């Protein structure tokens, strides 16, 4: 190995046997090796001394707080994520139930068709009188051939205008000259939407 090879070798590698052998024979290269060794020793000493230099404690405190905050948020997100499918399933199960209830509940009666000019004023009422007594105290008269109502059956009542001739159907007397007149009547509808009873408003029962 010559001096040139020594310099190339020392740039690439740590001191190896070949370099050391050449340095043993060449004073200049031995000086290079010596300076390099001293520098390395100095760097090692400096590194050892610097080992004591660390980030201030407040950095760790801040980071641990950040870690805890992140974990808390992750747990919260996880809990939220647990509820999302649960709510989805609940909603999925609930929607058909709501639809079923909607379909099964008594239908709101359609407004009565106009039976005569200026005829209909329909209203759904919640407080429905007891229509079971055909000639009950509420003035309701059971319609002929209508099915009877069970005591707990839900009913609706609508107010309509009908021809006075309708009174004849339930056995009420109507003078011939007034047959075409319109009269107001409350009609009780069963849960199937069919009329069950009728009461003529402001009309004396005859």
């Amino acid at each position, binding site marked *: 190995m010559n001096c040139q090879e020594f310099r190339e070798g020392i*740039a690439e590698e740590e001191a190896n046997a070949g370099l050391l052998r050449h340095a043993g024979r060449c004073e*200049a290269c031995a000086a290079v090796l010596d300076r390099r060794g001293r520098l390395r020793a100095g760097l090692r000493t400096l590194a050892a001394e610097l080992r004591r*230099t660390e980030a201030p404690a407040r950095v760790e405190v801040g980071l641990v707080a950040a870690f805890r905050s992140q974990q808390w948020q992750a747990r919260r997100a996880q809990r939220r994520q647990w509820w999302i499918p649960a709510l989805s399933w609940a909603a999925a199960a609930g929607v058909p139930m709501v639809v079923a209830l909607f379909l099964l509940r008594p239908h709101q009666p359609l407004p009565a068709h106009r039976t005569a000019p200026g005829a209909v004023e329909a209203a759904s009422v919640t407080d429905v009188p007891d229509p079971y007594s055909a000639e009950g105290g509420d003035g309701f008269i059971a319609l002929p051939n209508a099915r009877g109502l069970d005591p707990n059956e839900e009913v609706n009542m609508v107010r309509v205008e009908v021809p006075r001739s309708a009174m004849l159907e339930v056995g009420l007397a109507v003078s011939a000259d007034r047959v075409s007149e319109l009269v107001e009547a409350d009609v009780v509808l069963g849960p199937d939407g069919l009329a069950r009873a009728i009461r003529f408003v402001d009309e004396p029962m005859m």
Partner: protein
Amino acid sequence: MKITPPETDDELFVRLRGGEESAFVQLYRRRQGAIYRFVLHMSRSPAVAEDVTQEVFVALLREGCGYDPDRGTLSGYLFGIARKLLLRQVERGRVDVPLESGSEDAAIPELAVAGNALEDLTNREGIEALRRAIGTLPRRYREVVVLCDLEEVDYADTAAMLGCPIGTVRSRLHRARALLLDKLNHERRPRPTVSALSPIRCLT
């Protein structure tokens, strides 16, 4: 008594990902010093070193932090982030020390100059001189000295961090050491000043 070996960085990282605070604290205590010192050497600013150290570990906490054990060690990954953050600080002007000077092709000072026997660098004076000399190195040389010589990061990790081949790390280190020796030599044996070179008389 059975002695269990300390957990590796990767094992701690897995536990950290599982939400274990103790793993994070252990990992931080193991690696913070080197990161802090690296940035301190490069920036010469304790405030910047503190900020960057904090940001490095905050980055590690992020879900998609990007650490891949197949691409290098966790230590190398942390140094890599620190280096990028440091460069960002330079761009923002928080580091007013010129980090970049000199070129790769600049002439390498001779490692040995006749009659330049280097004095002991392990005593107080020598260490201080060495510290000053490192601080004046151009960035590319300073970082390899700090990483490889002071923090004992291996060449492969350093190369991965700097995004260059291992051969480049070796050659930069060689050049950096030569520059250090040159600086130390000049510090102890200052070059003659201009006044010392002033002519005694004019011959023309």
